[in-house]
């Protein structure tokens, strides 16, 4: 992999409209116009673990959905929009249809694999999988978002 594509991946992460404690992308492993693969590791000190669940921390499904959306949809969307994406670009999540199969605990690293279904009229819809370190599918489904 050349320097140029490495730069590109870092550039995408720098363009994400999120920051801590709501940035859920550590690394983009692969990206092209048809899809993206990226990873995120859950820091055990993340605030939501204090309450979900009481004394038994498990990553909430909504957070897993957010990881899938940030890597699978937003990173890919920035890549596809290229120079037309800037800090004034407003995006919104429009639909999710996800099944949750396994729990994700603090300190786990997860990998998101997203495949574009379509990107038309400003709407991006993807088939997205989230896997754990044992390569087991933790959640899967479809997510869509659009320029607003």
């Amino acid at each position: 992999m050349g320097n140029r594509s490495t730069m590109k991946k870092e550039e995408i992460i720098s363009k994400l409209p999120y920051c801590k404690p709501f940035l859920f992308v550590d690394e983009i492993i692969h990206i092209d116009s048809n899809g993206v693969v990226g990873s995120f590791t859950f820091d055990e000190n993340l605030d939501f673990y204090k309450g979900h669940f009481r004394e038994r921390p498990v990553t909430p499904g909504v957070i897993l959905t957010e990881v899938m959306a940030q890597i699978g949809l937003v990173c890919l969307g920035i890549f596809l929009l290229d120079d037309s994406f800037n800090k004034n670009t407003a995006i919104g999540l429009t639909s999710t249809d996800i099944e949750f199969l396994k729990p994700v605990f603090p300190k786990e690293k997860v990998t998101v694999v997203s495949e574009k279904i379509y990107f038309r009229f400003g709407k991006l819809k993807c088939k997205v999988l989230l896997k754990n370190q044992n390569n087991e599918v933790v959640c899967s489904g479809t997510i869509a978002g659009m320029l607003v």
Partner: protein
Amino acid sequence: MISKQEIIEQLKTIVKPYVQNQESFDALTEETDFINDLKINSANLVDVILDIEEKYTIIIDNESMEKMINVKAAMEIVAIKLAEK
């Protein structure tokens, strides 16, 4: 050549899963507006357009998409695209 009424019936089948206002859907006419009457949200309207493309094997460009605000406009664009084939 398919008739107007046939196209309306086919469009009804396409929009049905996305409709949020059943009354307006039941009383659908050429003047029925997708967003204001049927309450189809803008994200789902994209799916309506893509389903129309698939049904008639046509390609709808951005300009045509923006015009497809009601049943009548959709019928006209489908007719134009079918004639271009």
